[in-house]
């Protein structure tokens, strides 16, 4: 195969791996939106906080990796529950803007508090994964990307199963579909709201470990959250499959665009290409590729 073709496939392969990792984070956003209709502008900050907690547990307190990850997971679950109870539940029934503003405020607070509590330096979050690149001809993939993508895929599948097959998942979709009727069925609606936020916490903890190990841990890590928006707009705000597809599209597009355009413009393509695509998508399919359209019988 020629080098140029090789280069193209490598960009795509890389994009797929990165895309799955975006999808995992976007899943946190989708879970919350699906169940509670809240738009969480702090998803990236959730990831950052989780990564800070895990790396602090590892380095400052010398915890073994498995324990640090457990602490991160437990901490983020508690955080999700606590947040729902203290901030979001009182906002129930208020205009959607109130919730949006609350999450934007929360994002700012987390960006301030994280470094305050754990220091401002860039920490690393080393995983026991070989750093040796895997060569494919003249190009290479890093093992941590492969592992990150694998873990993401695993959890995306697990959450997908939960929603499609488990009784709790079906109840959660029922809540998302019609709160009042769900309540009439004896479904404890607030409990499912809390569960959705806790699940966003779980996803953020995993995302924090994966992204933190690749990018290093500091406030900048919250920026991965920015990629959530093109992903969910492309895939549909409330669709798990959509999050995966949207993630893959964003991952591939930004990699391919960066691979071909960056050499001429000196970089930065990755940051805007997904947004350009998002705006295009909004013009064509406002509810996303897999987003729900309200069913109207004729």
């Amino acid at each position, binding site marked *: 195969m020629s080098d140029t073709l090789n280069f193209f496939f490598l960009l795509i392969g890389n994009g797929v791996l990165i895309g799955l990792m975006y999808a995992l984070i976007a899943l946190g956003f989708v879970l919350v939106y699906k169940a509670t209709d809240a738009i969480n502008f702090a998803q990236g900050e959730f990831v950052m906080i989780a990564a800070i907690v895990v790396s602090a547990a590892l380095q400052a307190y010398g915890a073994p990796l498995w324990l640090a990850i457990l602490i991160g997971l437990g901490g983020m679950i508690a955080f999700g529950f606590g947040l729902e109870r203290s901030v979001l539940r009182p906002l129930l029934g208020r205009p959607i803007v109130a919730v949006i503003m609350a999450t934007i405020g929360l994002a700012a607070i987390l960006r301030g508090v994280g470094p305050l509590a754990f220091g401002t330096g860039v920490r690393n979050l080393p995983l026991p994964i070989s750093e040796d690149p895997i060569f494919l001809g003249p190009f290479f993939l890093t093992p941590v990307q492969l592992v990150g993508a694998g873990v993401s895929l695993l959890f995306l599948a697990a959450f997908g199963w939960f929603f499609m097959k488990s*009784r709790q998942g*079906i*109840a959660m*979709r*029922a809540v*998302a*579909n*019609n*709160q*009042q*009727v*769900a*309540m*009439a*069925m*004896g*479904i*404890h609606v607030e409990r499912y709201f809390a569960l959705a936020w806790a699940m966003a916490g779980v996803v953020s903890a995993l995302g924090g470990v994966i992204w933190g190990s690749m990018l290093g841990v500091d406030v900048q890590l919250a920026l991965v959250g920015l990629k959530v928006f093109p992903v969910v707009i492309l895939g549909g705000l409330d669709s798990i499959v959509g999050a995966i597809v949207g993630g893959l599209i964003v991952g591939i597009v930004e990699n391919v665009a960066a691979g071909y355009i960056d050499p001429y413009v000196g970089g930065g393509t990755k940051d805007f290409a997904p947004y350009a695509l998002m705006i295009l998508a909004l013009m064509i399919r406002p509810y996303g590729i897999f987003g*729900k359209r*309200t*069913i109207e*019988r004729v």
Partner: protein
Amino acid sequence: MLNLNNIEVIYNNVVLVLRGVSLQVKEGSITTLLGANGAGKTTTLKAISGLLRAERGEVTKGSVELAGQRIDGKPAHEIVNQGVVQVFEGRRVFDQLTVEENLIAGAHTQRDMGKVRQRTEAVYSYFPRLRERRSQLAGYLSGGEQQMLVIGRALMSDPKVILLDEPSLGLAPLVVEEIFGRLKRLQQEERLTVLLVEQNANLALGLADHGYVMENGRIVLEGPAASLRDNSDVKEFYLGISEHGARKSYREVKHYRRRKRWLS
């Protein structure tokens, strides 16, 4: 089985909607609650099922008792757990879920998976059309099928009492007949207790054992269904038949209704 003792309901701390409603639903009976638009029928059902709260409504006086135990003030999920389930008017299926998923969601209070399967089979045997459509999105069912689904979904919790709000609304007579037939069977075979809110008094009094008529947040008339059917006021208002045996036009009845009050 179900007792409402002189209940008063207020929305938003100001709007008084029920002004002392008392009614009884005997175990294993079908009781119907009739009344014009805005009389307070739906509010009465919500006062029983605990769903008032979500709408900032409150039972401010009186009590609701299920088998002698007070249930007013309890949250909706506890009331479902105790065996009372409300079916909203207007066929509110979970339109994004399949028929079977709707049923599973209805069985949320059931702990035992075997029981869920058994209830699903029971619902499918009462409404075979739902079995045929089990993996279809509920939003695409016909109106009659949706009404069967919301009733079936409520039955999934294995209720003692089902509160049905205007199940005949907007359905073809044949479909309504089919659904009412199933209700009769459910009453006979499962000893289901039914509180049926209807605008279609003729149909409802044909099915029910006992009836209440409501106006302006009060019960104004009550009695065995058969005697209500013979009552001249009920005839005139709800069956559309005047003393002379002629059918009154809807507009005439509506006009008359504005002037006349039940007990005045």
